[in-house]
């Protein structure tokens, strides 16, 4: 992939650039990322004697390090924004993804900003595991000379809201570093908190680092053609071409195959990317909320400088299906219900988690009557967040279309049917309807740059979506590496997503191996991780042979799969748990083990 002048403001002379091209040509992303880490390391050591192009102040050598840990790209985006601002302010800065950061340099570091999200059930993003583990470990050095600030990204509908960032913030202080300003806790409406945080960060950086003439940084080798043209704030209006149920039989799961027309958007996605959907809440739900609170949907309601009818606020501007801490707190306070208040105490974290998983705001609004004004409601509810869906197609195969596999969240409660906002919005779109979309890049979930590499894809349920894109793509470019897919779902008959496509792929050789686990077709539950263990020998051989391993789907599944993977490596790699852990860590560093979990 060419690193030409398309890369923003390369601080390299032309002939060096050519060398760089020679060096990087044909490298897969693993190699490239390693290289970026390596050059980062060099750059760091340049402190005392910067070369002509790294014009930092020799005597201070002071330079800002921005480190990010990001699963779906938000933290990365914020970190990059900060980097640009710092650069334009003419300060020396380097931007590093957490796993590219040479941790042994922490002790020497003067100024560090960390932007990091919380994943899973309070876990770090995959790319920050090493970084976090190191800092948590006893190997972590004293950091007297370090000043820092941390921005945590999270989602307050998760009980473990922003814990990774918060713990990191505390730990750095514990190690003796100086906290420049308070930990930032960004919810899904990231910028509300991120904007002010970056401003503070900039100011402090200005104070600490004397502005040199020109700045340097490690330019990401992969020039990300900004998908920023369309965003959650400014989505593209796309037409639904197909909305087809993929599951059979009534009852059971309702998974939809959507084909969406991106023509004219200029959106140029790659396998592994996700599509952001800006949903609207179910009409019946909006009415139910209005009824429950005896509010009139027509009332013009103003909030944060915008005025809409209350109905409009609730339909397209506010989160109505996901609970979150602030909302529960507000409900507890308004209804004065002791049980609800108790739930918010740390010791009831599990109960709260269960509540978040099994209830929606409407359930509580109906259960805990309290008087609400429209303004209060709009002020309390969180902005409606877009949802992400793994892209299930390759442009090489479908050109201007994008395909999704969407599990329709729909379930019955005593009080009536409940829906998931986005999946219901999508499941009920008809062909010809318009929906608002944007592209969410995922550089961490990429096919090997080297088409001869084998890939193992583990994607039960809708987790299979990106692998449809992978297989389509590898077929289209004539990749010679083997493709092995592991899929699972409740029932063979009704839930075998894209069954005939996989059968065709196996026939025409674009898929080399497929193993399935249908959990409810026999007495004993059976999942992909069982298959992984069952075929452990082959899995290990493939990995030894350089295969890349991908996991996509539910968070809990990904955890079980990783346990199985560890066992497999212990068994067949004949090592102990630590050795297996190392093995997996290495896979991760080499970007041969990528996960996309939700």
């Amino acid at each position, binding site marked *: 992939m060419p690193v030409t002048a398309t890369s923003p403001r390369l601080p390299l002379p032309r002939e060096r650039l050519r060398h760089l091209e020679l060096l990087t040509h044909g490298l897969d992303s693993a190699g490239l990322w390693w290289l970026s880490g390596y050059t980062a390391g060099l750059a760091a050591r340049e402190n005392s004697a910067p070369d002509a192009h790294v014009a930092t102040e020799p005597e201070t050598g002071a330079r800002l390090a921005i480190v990010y840990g990001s699963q779906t790209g938000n933290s990365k985006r914020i970190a990059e924004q900060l980097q640009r601002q710092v650069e334009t302010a003419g300060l020396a800065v380097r931007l590093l993804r957490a796993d590219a950061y040479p941790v042994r340099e922490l002790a020497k570091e003067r100024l560090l900003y960390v932007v990091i999200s919380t994943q899973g059930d309070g876990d770090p993003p995959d790319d920050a595991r090493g970084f976090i583990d190191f800092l948590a470990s006893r190997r972590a050095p004293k950091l007297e000379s370090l000043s820092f600030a941390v921005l945590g990204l999270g989602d307050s509908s998760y009980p473990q809201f922003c814990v990774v960032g918060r713990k990191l913030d505390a730990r750095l202080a514990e190690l003796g570093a100086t906290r420049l300003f308070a930990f930032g806790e960004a919810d899904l409406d990231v910028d509300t908190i991120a904007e002010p945080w970056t401003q503070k960060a900039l100011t402090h950086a200005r104070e600490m680092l004397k502005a040199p003439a020109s700045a340097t940084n490690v330019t990401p080798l992969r020039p990300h053609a900004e998908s920023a043209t369309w965003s959650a704030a400014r989505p593209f209006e796309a037409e639904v071409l197909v909305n087809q*149920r*993929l599951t*059979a039989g009534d009852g059971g799961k309702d998974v939809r*195959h959507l084909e969406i027309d991106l023509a004219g958007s200029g959106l140029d996605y790659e396998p592994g990317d996700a599509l952001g959907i800006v949903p609207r809440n179910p009409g019946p739900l909006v009415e139910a909320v209005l009824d429950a609170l005896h509010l009139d949907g027509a009332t013009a309601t103003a909030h944060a400088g915008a005025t809409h009818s209350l109905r409009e606020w609730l339909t397209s501007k506010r989160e109505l299906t996901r609970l979150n801490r602030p909302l529960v707190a507000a409900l507890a306070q308004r209804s004065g219900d002791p049980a609800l208040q108790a739930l918010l105490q740390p010791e009831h974290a599990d109960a709260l988690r269960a509540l978040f998983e099994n209830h929606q705001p409407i359930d509580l609004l109906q259960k805990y009557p309290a008087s609400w004004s429209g303004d209060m409601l709009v002020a309390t509810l969180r902005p409606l967040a877009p949802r992400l869906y793994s892209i299930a197609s390759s442009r090489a195969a479908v050109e201007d279309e994008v395909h999704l596999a969407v599990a329709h969240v729909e379930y019955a409660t005593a009080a009536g049917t409940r829906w998931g906002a986005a999946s219901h919005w999508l499941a009920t779109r008809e062909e010809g309807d318009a929906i608002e979309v944007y592209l969410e890049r995922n550089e961490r979930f990429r096919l090997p740059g080297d088409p001869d590499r084998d890939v193992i894809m583990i994607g039960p349920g809708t987790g299979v979506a990106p692998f449809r894109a992978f297989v389509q793509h590898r077929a289209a470019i004539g990749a010679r590496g083997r493709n092995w897919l592991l899929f699972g779902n409740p029932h*063979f*008959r009704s839930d075998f997503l894209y069954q*005939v*496509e996989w059968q065709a792929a196996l026939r025409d050789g674009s898929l080399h191996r*497929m193993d399935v686990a249908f959990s409810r077709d026999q007495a004993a539950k059976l999942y992909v991780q069982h298959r992984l263990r069952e075929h452990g020998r082959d899995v290990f051989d493939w990995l030894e042979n350089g295969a890349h391993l991908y996991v996509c789907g539910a968070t809990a599944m990904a955890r079980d799969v990783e346990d199985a993977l560890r066992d497999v490596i212990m068994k067949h790699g004949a090592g102990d748990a630590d050795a297996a852990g190392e093995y997996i860590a290495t896979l991760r560093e080499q970007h041969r083990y990528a996960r996309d979990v939700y």
Partner: protein
Amino acid sequence: MNEPSDLERIKRESRHLRGSLRESLADPITGALHADDVQLLKFHGGYQQDDRDVREARRLAKLEPDYSFFLRLRLPGGVLTPAQWLAMDAMAQRYGTRGLRLTTRQTIQTHGIRKVDLRAAAQAIHACGLDTIAACGDDNRNVVAAVNPLLSRLHAQIFGQAQALSAHLRPKSRAWYETWLDEPATDGNEAEPLLGDTYLPRKFKIGFAVPPDNDIDVFSQDVGLVAIVADGELAGYDVLVGGGMGASHGNTRTYPRMASPIGFITPDQVTALAEAALTLQRDHGDRSDRAHARFKYTVDDHGLPWIKAEVERRAGFALRPSRGFEFAQRGDRFGWRRGEDGRWHLGLRIPFGRVQDKAGVTRQTGMREVAALLAGRAPDAQIRLTPNQNALVAGVPAELREPIDAIVATHDLALHRASSRLALNTIACVALPTCGLAMAESERWMPTFLPRLQALLDRHGLHGEPIDLRVSGCPNGCSRPYLAEVALIGKAPGRYNLMLGGDHRGQRMNALYRENITEPAILAALDGLLARFAAERETGEHFGDFLVRTGVVMPRDSREAAA
């Protein structure tokens, strides 16, 4: 001779019916078998099918068709012990979806078995001393024998011959045991002395009739044996060859044909005669055009005299002149009757052979309770299946009649008490949704169609008239429609050919009366004819005979009788 059909290749390469069945069964990505194995499975008594009702929906959903299988028992003479009935009932409940289906060849089919359950189902069958070998495929099919409840000694004798013949003519390959049981796989180089390495060109059917009953429709069999009884003793059999029902719309090379008499044999000559006819067909049957591969075409292509001579040459004896016989009826006898041995027999009407608990009707439970009662108190009693898709509880000690009557009453099995002759005599094939060849509904249509036809009969004062109606969803004729007084043969969804003029003993084929008409047109046509029948019939005259006498249809040479 032209190119052999592809099935001949499949048979030849199959290592005596093994093919890649084991691999097919193990493939987790599909509920189907590999193409060649689909054909081989038939020789094992199984059929791959899919639910045609949901085909289109699943195609759109990117799901393969909803594949399932039926297994058909090899059950010569249709005789089960009560214990075997219970075992089959349990198997069907566990692995099947549509209960037990009594067929027109006296056996049981279980539909809706998933590929993953096939082995377990076959093992359950084997565990009760039964198998499904050669129940379908190009081999000797289930040997049928008159149910014949009264003459128990004669029945035992003929049933014995049917069983022996079925065992003698079945494939010798161990493929069935290796595929379905845990018998270790071999390279399959055993010999097939009788059937040969490529088996028969087509299915081959043998049946034993005992006058005055023609319940097996002896004229529809490839080889029919009609018992000749002289003062209570079995003297031997009149031999008929070349019967068959199947035809294809618009293919003049295909037609139903009534078996032709070629002579008389003694009971000890049965095996040799059957071997002779079967090997003759094996060597001279058409192996290139499967539509023209049945024995009946071999007979017509070579002419009866040559066939007779060739059979005699192969059998090693000359046939004696036919003795001749008279049939009085073909339908089943229902209700209790006392056999010569003092045991009792209960004939039960099972509409279209479907023994299934459904929509409040609990016949499967009823039959289970009857079988359980017998298994406990009269284990030597039998449950016999009739070629008219009905069941006979045979050999019941007098004291069990009352408890059985009680069960039968509670589970809607006493239809013979209430139903009209029409409801009792009608045969309908399976057809949709499982049959891959169905062009129109059959079994599923009867519950709506029969009452409407009955209403016509009633209107013309013919309520109890024993008209026999046979319905097939396509011209293959699984309900043996061409031998019925009134037949409906599917052409397209909701459309049928109306055939009229067969006789009630199954001794004359019907002829096409109206082509490709819908239910209203069918009822309209019959309305007029029944009105005339009611007005102009001679005393005791049957509907079919009336239609021929009055020239409504011409009894024709069987060749043209095809739909």
